[in-house]
């Protein structure tokens, strides 16, 4: 209904409003990186040689600097205090009492991908300041991704959009499915997980195993639920965002897991960190080091805490072992079959769950307590509060994902028969009303 030439204004205004509903003043930080990167893009395009590189470096320093101050400063200061304290010195560097701006890591990475792509010549510098601001601030993906590339999204803001019935319907459908995953599964599992992970000393080894599996599904449904809502909302407006999840717990190796989990972030690290470090076109030890470093940085990206760094490091180690075992595999010791696929899938899931312990634990000592409890199968009864629903919905989700993976032709929400389609929608809405948890639970990834 709105004229195309004014559309970006409405979208930008909505995005600003959306962002400012959290902590209004932090829009200034976003404004700072937008201004820096906008001009950096133009200058990179206009200049040649060393200057060009200088502008890129300045842009990256500005973005990483914002991250360093708002996300990592106090963490680094804490560690400095600990380090100096162990040598008998006192840390004089003051602490900053600041709140982490919501979705900072997401929009900073999206902004960085713009200047890098302009530098690489894959993207023309955007001259329209409003459109560029919209690229960084587009509200469906502003606070928790997917982390878009300029080549995919910028041109879409110029495209004249007409009302597209099938886009609107499929967008709404995806939003409904995302909402179901968030409020019925993730938030339901969160009740169980929180009660165990916030009182680690009180629970048995079996309870810790169950809570860790529950967390694996909680974080998946929470984050992929958000992504579904973001992708759906964008599609309703005629925009196509990149896919962020593809049934990750059906992966049969850690490598495959990362090609299905948080795809926009893993490809970001692949394109802008791993490949520039030399990727796998270096000596084998350097290759392993590259992998390890990339995953450790990826852990640090998630949060300024050793728990996230250990989580990333564990995935780095898994990747290296995966490569080492690939040689064993290629000798057909484990012949590929349905059964071995299941075994590989279960091993992958177990490894991913083990790493999730560090991701979820409140601190490293809690994580180690959980590991100890699990490995020694600490005695005690299984805590069952709210477990019935949790297990039920995890099984339902895995069945749905298995069908989606292997029997693409079976569709309920997108069934050609209208009666089946509408029955599916109504059932999903009824289940949300009947089993949803509406306690205002935040999306986990908003904190990153």
């Amino acid at each position: 209904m709105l004229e195309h030439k004014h559309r970006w204004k409405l979208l930008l205004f909505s995005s600003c409003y959306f962002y400012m509903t959290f902590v209004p003043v932090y829009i200034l930080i976003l404004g700072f990186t937008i201004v820096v990167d906008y001009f950096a893009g133009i200058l990179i395009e206009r200049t040649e040689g060393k200057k060009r590189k200088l502008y890129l470096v300045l842009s990256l320093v500005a973005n990483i600097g914002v991250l360093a101050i708002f996300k990592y400063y106090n963490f680094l200061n804490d560690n400095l205090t600990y380090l100096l304290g162990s040598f008998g010195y006192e840390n004089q560097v003051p602490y900053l009492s600041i709140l982490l701006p919501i979705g900072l890591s997401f929009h900073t990475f999206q902004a960085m991908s713009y200047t890098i792509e302009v530098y690489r010549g894959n993207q023309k510098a955007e001259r329209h300041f409003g459109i560029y601001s919209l690229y960084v601030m587009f509200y469906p993906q502003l606070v928790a991704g997917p982390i878009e590339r300029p080549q995919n999204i910028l041109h879409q803001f110029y495209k004249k959009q007409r009302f597209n019935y099938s886009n609107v319907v499929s967008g709404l459908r995806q939003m409904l499915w995302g909402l179901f995953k968030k409020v019925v599964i993730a938030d339901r599992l969160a009740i169980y997980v929180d009660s165990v992970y916030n009182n680690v000393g009180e629970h048995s080894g079996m309870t810790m195993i169950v809570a860790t599996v529950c967390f694996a599904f909680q974080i998946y449904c929470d984050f992929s639920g958000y992504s579904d809502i973001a992708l759906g909302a964008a599609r309703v407006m005629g925009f196509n965002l990149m896919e962020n999840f593809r049934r990750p717990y059906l992966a049969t190796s850690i490598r495959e897991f990362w090609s299905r989990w948080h795809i926009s972030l893993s490809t970001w690290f692949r394109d802008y960190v791993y490949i520039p470090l030399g990727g796998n076109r270096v000596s084998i030890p350097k290759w392993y080091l590259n992998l390890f470093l990339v995953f450790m940085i990826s852990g640090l990206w998630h949060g300024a805490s050793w728990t996230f760094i250990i989580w990333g490091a564990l995935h780095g180690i898994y990747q290296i072992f995966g490569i080492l075992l690939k040689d064993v595999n290629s000798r057909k010791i484990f012949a590929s079959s349905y059964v071995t696929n299941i075994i590989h899938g279960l091993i992958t899931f177990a490894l991913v769950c083990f790493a999730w312990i560090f991701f979820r634990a409140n601190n490293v000592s809690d994580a180690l307590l959980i590991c100890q409890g699990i490995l020694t199968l600490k005695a005690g009864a299984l805590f069952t509060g709210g477990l019935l629903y949790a297990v039920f919905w995890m099984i339902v989700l895995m069945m749905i994902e298995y069908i989606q993976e292997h029997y693409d032709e079976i569709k309920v929400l997108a069934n050609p028969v209208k009666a089946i389609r509408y029955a599916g929608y109504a059932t999903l809405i009824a289940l949300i009303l009947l089993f949803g948890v509406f306690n205002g639970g935040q999306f986990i990834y908003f904190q990153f």
Partner: protein
Amino acid sequence: MKKVLKLFRNLLLLAGIVFLADRGIGYGLQYFYENERQGDNSKTSYALTRKVKEDVLIFGSSRAAHHYVSDIIQESTGLSCYNVGRDGMKLSYYYVLLKSILSYHKPKAIILDLNHDDFILEEKYRDKMVSALLPYIDRSKAVREYLADEAPLESWKARFSYLYRYNSVPSSLLMNHIGMGQKHILGYEPLKQSKIRGDFKVQMVDNEEYREDPALVREFDAFVKAVRDQGIELYVVYSPSLRRVKYDCINTANTVLASYNMRLFDYSQYFTSNEKQFFYDETHMNNSGAERFTKAFMQSIKVRKNAGENKTDEPAFVQVEYSVR
């Protein structure tokens, strides 16, 4: 434009289907919910669907539900008795239940069991009470008023959707209908054996953070007043516990009760730490403890003999000398 109209038409169709499903399944759930025979919900339903007809009613939280044996009270007094105590509830809930019951029935006596922290309201208890009362939004004016004050958004959602009223209850509904729910006898929920293992010593909990909410104290006052105004005998009791706390509701409760020439029946130290066999856990007695306590409590009040006679102006129980052991 045609496509936009098509979208609105289909959304309207979907809204219609959802509305019908919501009402249809909602009514079905209401039927099963209000006809449970076991579990906490069955007791709330009993009180809020105008079924209470007993002479003696017991109000309170889980301690009330597990500590007052209705059968013993019936035998001792010759009056019918029902225990509406419910796990995880606080004063606001007891008061809503009281107002609802008094709107259609006048019991002869009420026993209100207090917890040490009944004048403190934590968010988790408020949420529990709202969830417990939401299914009865159409059943009781007192429930509607409480929800409108305490949880207006929840109240609105429950009016909008019948299914939402029964959010998260299907599993307990199923358990209670297949006989796997918490069993009760006239509302009394017996606990078996004891969870207390090894050497147990009663320790004083230094609950420095204890801060009473004046609104809850006023609610307690209103509870007492509502009962007294109707000429119903009221016994406010602090039943036995192995948990000793530095700060509790006793002084405040006694201050309120004194203005009605009443006092609290403080049985908190009725059992010593050597008698842990009467406790399921620190704060709840098991069946042996509950039976012993109920008998002792009934002995401490003289039972009205001629309950069935036409002497409604007489008190149900006549209080006699009570002494802590």
